[in-house]
């Protein structure tokens, strides 16, 4: 006959001590305070931008090009369009390369070569943006002989790639191996499984990574200074200097004119609003195809 084991009920029945309740309260409070601290700067920045910028936003600001120094009025229409244009160029290079690299790292890169790429991507992520601008200057501007939207796009794409590659990798690794096996078991080839099953299962996470990279480079100024360069007029040519919102804000903010300062505030407000719009739009479009019961 084995000895009977009895669990004393003291432990479970003991009242929860004042100390534990106090600690619980303070831990909850600390977490809530941390949330407030995170949200406060965001709210403050946005509130201040609205306060300073909203007064200068009008129809002319959104539809006209800048006026020469001393003339009132004018707007940033060409800079808004230029930013969109440069970001389109950057995304069309950065997104496919980044996702492709992420797929390689997750599905084929469990080896020394993969580790080298991972390390390189992490270092590249930490390179100051002005240095990336110099690289794009050396590669594109010097070989073309002039500043261009393409050079700006290349600089921003270089900045997008490591972020997208690493988040795509992480998201693909979260897809359980049983899902891949299910596809192999049906006689689906490996590349098809990767594209149609694994990547598709990880779509929402991959999109988050892409949006993160997009939002980060959308406001970059330094890499555009000597690549896209800026432009006072409309330009849609890929190999001509092009205006960008961030460049225009920079130029206006360091100028000695009050009118330009006001316009810089308005430009900053527009920039933030456009980034929020772009990110939300992609999210809405991406979630439209979601089915019931998909987490």
């Amino acid at each position, binding site marked *: 006959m084995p000895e009977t084991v009895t669990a004393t009920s003291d432990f479970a029945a003991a009242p929860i001590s004042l100390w534990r309740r106090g600690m619980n309260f303070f831990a909850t409070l600390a977490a809530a305070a941390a949330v407030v601290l995170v949200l406060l700067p965001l709210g403050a920045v946005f509130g201040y931008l609205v306060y300073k910028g909203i007064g200068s936003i009008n129809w002319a600001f959104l539809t006209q090009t800048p006026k020469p120094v001393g003339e009132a009025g004018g707007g940033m229409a060409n800079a808004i369009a230029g930013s969109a244009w440069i970001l389109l160029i950057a995304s069309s290079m950065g997104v496919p390369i980044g996702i492709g690299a992420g797929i390689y790292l997750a599905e084929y890169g*469990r080896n020394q070569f993969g580790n080298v790429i991972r390390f390189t991507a992490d270092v590249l992520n930490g390179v100051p943006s002005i240095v990336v601008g110099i690289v794009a200057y050396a590669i594109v501007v010097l070989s073309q002989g002039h500043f261009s939207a393409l050079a700006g796009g290349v600089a921003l794409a270089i900045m997008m790639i490591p972020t997208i590659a690493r988040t795509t990798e992480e998201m693909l690794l979260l897809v*359980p191996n*049983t*899902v891949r*096996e*299910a*596809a*192999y*078991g*049906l*006689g*689906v*080839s490996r590349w*098809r*499984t990767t594209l*149609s*099953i694994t990547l*598709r*299962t990880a*779509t929402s996470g991959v999109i988050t990574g892409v949006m993160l990279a997009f939002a980060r480079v959308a406001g970059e100024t330094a890499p555009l200074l000597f690549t896209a360069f800026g432009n006072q007029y409309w330009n849609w040519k890929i190999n001509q200097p092009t205006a960008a919102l961030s460049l225009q804000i920079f130029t206006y903010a360091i100028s000695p004119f009050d009118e330009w300062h006001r316009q810089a505030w308005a430009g900053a407000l527009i920039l933030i609003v456009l980034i929020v719009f772009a990110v939300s739009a992609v999210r809405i479009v991406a979630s439209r195809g*979601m*089915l*019931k*019961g*998909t*987490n």
Partner: protein
Amino acid sequence: MGVGIKVEKLNAWFGKTQALYDITMEAPANHATAIIGPSGCGKSTFVRCLNRMHETVPDARATGRVRIGELDVYNGTAAVQIRRRIGMVFQKPNPFPTMSIYDNVAAGLKLNGFHDHARLDEIVERSLKLSALWDEVKDSLRKKSGASLSGGQQQRLCIARALAVQPQVLLMDEPCSALDPISTGKIEELIFQLKEKFTIVIVTHNMQQASRVAEFTGFFLLGKLIELDKTEKIFTTPSDKRTEDYITGRFG
């Protein structure tokens, strides 16, 4: 129609560790053959060698001869082609989480380039009826994701998905181990009906299950096939002492 399976001198390794030793056996067409044995004895590795899923694991390899009907599995045919002829149902239900119920069933055909919609509708319906899931999901085929179903339903969805590519052989790797008795009952009933059309090899930890669904049972121990015989014989008068010990619960 199902086809018979013939295995000769099958050896399998994970890196340097040998998992299967000289397995030679036959599984007759249109019958169910159960594989039993203690954990880690190579049951799963064995069925995964039959459709070359074994080699999808890094560093894994296998040698020997496997014939499925006229098909020489390890000689002359690409692995993906083999797997289209041999359906597989896994231990844990693994529907594609972002796909609808319909797309889950049609996945094997669609991803292999079959896009005739009228035919697909027909095949999806027939497969879901075969796996006894049709009545429960017919109203939400395209609206609900495969992951929204219950565990038992998910497993029947996975069976339908395997049947949709019209295989000749169905390999089941402990298909009921994650399911409750009611779902298990449904799947066993299903295996009974499926035998008319397919040859089934089922790995199971549950000896009652083996005796309920399979005409033949093979006992594996430490990577070796100890004996394979009529299920009745294995469970009443096994010829090997080790089989008897396992069945009577002396180890394992």
